[in-house]
């Protein structure tokens, strides 16, 4: 068996790894490195998006703690990553005056003074879902008429999925 016949000298093209291989690489990164890697090139960005959508449980990406106090300068929230001990300052100007209601999969549900619900991802600052969240908030107010709302339980609850506006 004589190795080294072919292959090893072909220069590798890491941009064209199959997407699920890239996803396994990304799943080995901590949150900050993950976000940076997602910006390396278009195929990596697409793998990054796929990975986020898959919500794979990864020992490298345990839940992080997001906290906020009036003392934090420049309207920043702090993100604490327990596995690395790293602290990040996340700009979060919207958070002032909002009450956190709950969180899941990196999303934060917050309520404003009149009880409108807002869905936001503090890491990606995804305000893209803002309209939908407002919509839900109004709907909720109409049904619930309460200034402070509670996150509905997963099933049933004050506004079951069937009653969602537009359905």
């Amino acid at each position, binding site marked *: 068996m004589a190795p080294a016949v072919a*292959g090893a000298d072909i*220069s590798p093209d*890491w941009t064209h790894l199959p997407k699920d291989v890239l996803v396994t*690489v990304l799943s*080995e990164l*901590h949150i900050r490195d993950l976000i940076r890697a997602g*910006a390396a*090139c278009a195929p990596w960005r697409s793998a990054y998006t796929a990975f986020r959508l898959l919500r794979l449980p990864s020992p490298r990406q345990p839940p992080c703690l997001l906290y906020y106090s009036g003392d934090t300068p420049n309207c920043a929230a702090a993100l604490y990553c327990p596995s690395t001990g790293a602290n*990040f300052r996340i700009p979060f100007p919207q958070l002032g005056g909002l009450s956190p209601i709950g969180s899941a999969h990196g999303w934060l549900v917050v309520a404003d003074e009149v009880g409108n619900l807002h869905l936001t991802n503090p890491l990606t600052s995804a305000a893209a879902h803002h309209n939908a969240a407002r919509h839900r908030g109004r709907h909720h107010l109409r049904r619930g008429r309460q200034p402070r709302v509670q996150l509905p339980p997963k099933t049933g609850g004050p506004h079951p999925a069937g009653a969602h506006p537009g359905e």
Partner: protein
Amino acid sequence: MAAPESGDGNNGAARMVTLISSDNTRFEVEAAAASLSQTLQLTILDGGGGGGDGIPLPNVDSATLSKVLEYCIKHAPAAANGGAPNATAVDRAELERFDNEFVNIDQSVLYSLIMAAHNLEIEGLQSLVAKKVADMIKGKSPMEIRRTLGFPDPTPEEQAEMNAHMLEYGWAYE
């Protein structure tokens, strides 16, 4: 070599299979080792790869295949124990030492390995190499990642996108 279940009562003789690389090199390995590949496992269960036949692997060259088999042979006993729940700490430490050494190799070989692990569906090997690649890009900016892994120079659009990303995710670049 020994035909499967040839029944000569020799417990020591493990069933062997032959794998043929893209450049026509024949590798004879224990079926248990080759079966770490989900792809090969089915063929082997069907009785393939024994005798003079051999299983052709048109996507894997001999240099890569010999490396892949080195991994499989080392990991086969633990895999046979169902992930080795009762492996001793010494065994586990030894495997870990082997793994660390194993991926301490050239980037082009890593690339061939992860592609082969993907094609042959060898989960452990794929995640081992993925871990190594992740280690290589840890703490680096997108541009440094590109340089480390030898991406082509960014186009002006790509450069603009990286700059925009850095502004948007400033906290991840501090």
